[in-house]
């Protein structure tokens, strides 16, 4: 706890300082910016995207969000007066191809930085190559891999929170509002184990406990047979699932329980890119979801949220403007938008001119501390921990009401803190 408080104080101090600096630097942009721009050649951003493979549904929306953010940045004058160019390459949701794509960005396309991608195994497979090629690699993955210290100085995750902070910040609310005896269902992947471990710990701190842990093997297409493993005394069912089978999973839960269900708390990953009004999902009425960013625009929608949705082409229900059946990966894809804006801020702070300034760029981002809610950060304010290369932000809990996700709780950023597990700033470049 003491460490948490120290962290908090440090971050707050830093926040105030950086706030002042940021405000100051905004006073002298224009002239200096154009004078320094020696070349108007675009800044090349290598975008590693899941176009094929099991991450493709995410990749499509990461792509749209990235294009929208790039367009906005270019319309507003680019970075240091230079336009940005997104160089997209498919990683096939595969770590080997991911690493190859990173090499291609560095050595063939001669990108200034690399960016993108969601699935943890692709990030972990690619990061060593990014580090060796000294290519700044900004990931939008949610994984705890960055903050755990497993990766390197060149890999950062400033635009999206990690699974450890998401999961542990949910536990107090779940224990206080839904119940203390929890059964967890999760994929038998490292990502699922992170949920299992961090949630179990956090709920025990709140006097609850996890009474059963059901790990679903990969590529499973039928989930029903595992559901009777849920103990009768379960008060809360905690579920998180990924991949093309998510809708089947949730529908089969409905068939299994009928109207006599325990409280259900799920991570929206289980229904990301899925229409919540799909037939068979009626039983979710009254259940709760974690959302990184609420899919349905609430009554108190901010101007930034409105602007962001319009720019990306998403309506108030999180679906595509051109096809209401085409539901976005709303809880995750904002990370691309925010990361590109952080990249812009970082490059401007480092006065980035070319690959020789990559180190300065990393240091500039490491020195960042706070991202206030703004057009660049529509999801909300975030604090950035430069030592662990990881951002921390608000998490949301929504309740399904009338076939919509209605936000009912927003955590404080401090609920998501945990002790540092590494200090990248002590590593050499």
């Amino acid at each position: 706890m003491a460490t948490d408080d120290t962290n908090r104080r440090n971050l707050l101090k830093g926040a105030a300082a950086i706030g002042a600096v940021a405000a100051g630097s905004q006073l002298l942009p224009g002239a200096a910016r154009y004078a320094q721009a020696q070349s108007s050649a675009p800044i090349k951003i290598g975008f590693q995207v899941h176009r094929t493979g099991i991450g493709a549904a995410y990749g499509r929306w990461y792509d749209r969000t990235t294009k929208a953010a790039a367009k906005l940045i270019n319309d507003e004058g680019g970075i240091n007066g230079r336009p940005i160019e997104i160089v997209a390459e498919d990683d096939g949701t595969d770590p080997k191809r991911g690493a190859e794509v990173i090499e291609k960005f560095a050595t063939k396309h001669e990108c200034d930085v690399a960016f993108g991608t969601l699935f943890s195994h692709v990030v972990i497979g690619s990061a060593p190559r990014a580090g060796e090629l000294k290519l700044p690699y900004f990931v939008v993955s949610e994984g705890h891999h960055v903050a755990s210290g497993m990766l390197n100085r060149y890999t950062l995750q400033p635009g999206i929170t990690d699974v450890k902070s998401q999961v542990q910040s949910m536990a107090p609310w779940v224990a206080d509002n839904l119940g203390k005896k929890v059964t967890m269902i999760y994929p038998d992947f490292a990502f699922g184990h992170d949920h299992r471990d961090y949630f179990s710990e956090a709920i025990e701190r709140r006097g609850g406990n996890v009474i059963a842990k059901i790990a679903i093997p990969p590529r499973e297409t039928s989930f029903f047979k595992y559901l009777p493993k849920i103990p009768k005394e379960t008060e809360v069912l905690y579920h998180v699932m990924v991949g093309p089978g998510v809708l089947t999973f949730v529908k089969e839960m409905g068939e299994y329980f009928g109207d006599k269900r325990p409280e259900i708390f799920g991570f929206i990953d289980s229904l990301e890119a899925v229409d919540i009004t799909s037939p068979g999902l009626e039983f979710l009425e009254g259940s709760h979801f974690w959302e990184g960013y609420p899919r349905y625009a609430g009554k108190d929608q901010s101007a930034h949220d409105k602007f962001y949705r319009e720019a990306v082409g998403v309506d108030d229900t999180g679906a595509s403007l051109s096809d209401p059946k085409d539901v976005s990966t709303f809880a995750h894809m904002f990370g691309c938008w925010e990361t590109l804006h952080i990249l812009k801020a970082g490059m401007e702070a480092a006065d980035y001119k070319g690959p020789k300034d990559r180190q300065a760029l990393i240091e500039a981002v490491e020195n960042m501390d706070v991202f206030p809610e703004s057009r660049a950060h529509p999801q909300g304010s975030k604090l950035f921990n430069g030592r662990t290369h990881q951002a921390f932000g608000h998490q949301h809990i929504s309740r399904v009401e009338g076939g919509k996700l209605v936000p009912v709780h927003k955590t404080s950023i401090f609920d998501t803190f945990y002790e540092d597990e590494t200090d990248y700033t002590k590593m050499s470049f």
Partner: protein
Amino acid sequence: MNLLDYLPFDLPHPALLAAGMLEGTVLAAVLALTALGLSIVFGIMRVVNVAHGEFYMLGAVLAWFITHTVSGIIGGPPWLGFALALIIAPLIVAALAAATDWLVLKRLNYDPEATIVATIGILYIIQQLALTFYGPDARPVEAPFDFRVQLPWFGYSGYKLCVVGAAILLMLIVWLILARTKIGLIMRATQYDRETAQAFGIPVDKVYAGVFALGAGLAAIGAVLIVPIQQAHYLMGGDPLLLSFIVVILGGLGSLKGTLVAAIFIGLSDGIISTLYEPTLAKILATLLVAMVLVFRPQGLFGARAA
């Protein structure tokens, strides 16, 4: 001491066992139907059709297009779209398979190794065309009807139980065609001895195209039946392919009875073992069990000699 103490697992709760058996039965039914197509192609043409799973996927994707058109654009009820999908999707897939046979397999003279390579190529082509025109999302198809059957411990999808019935009915029809009609006789004659059949005036080329189309059509029917339970996705063909393969080999080459028994064996062993152990460990054990059956009975359960 109780003898039960020596079992290498805890006895499952009846609810768990019931769920495992039910799910195993549904898996077995769909698998039998899908594997039947592969088995016929394998048995009669001696062709290992690696693209079989993609014909299955295509059936599901076409079912989405058809039901989407009927309910979304014309505004018809879900059952109408589904009924149309059940007829049209397998026909389109069968036609495509016949074209594949004529364009590629025939030119390879059905050489076993070459057809494996060719069908791997066709696998990629179909899969990528689905990605191009249908996209990477998993999309649901509404069931033609659905009701929930309440069992003592939990509820179960009535539609799933109907799928089992439909699969049994379809298999009976296929069996009748093969065993009792002239078409079936011709197919069996071709299987028995291709050259002699040709000498007796059987149009072997047409029989082969027809058999290949029938096999693909059966996969597509299985997919249309399953797609209200799962979703249509461009990568969904992989698992049915592998499982069908396993079923066909385990059953014994060209033995339809073997295919059926193997499908039931695979479905139920997967369902029941999953109740005894942790899920992933259960998958490992079920996989090794099947491998070991083949290792110690290489000709399969009902095969006379290995191929």
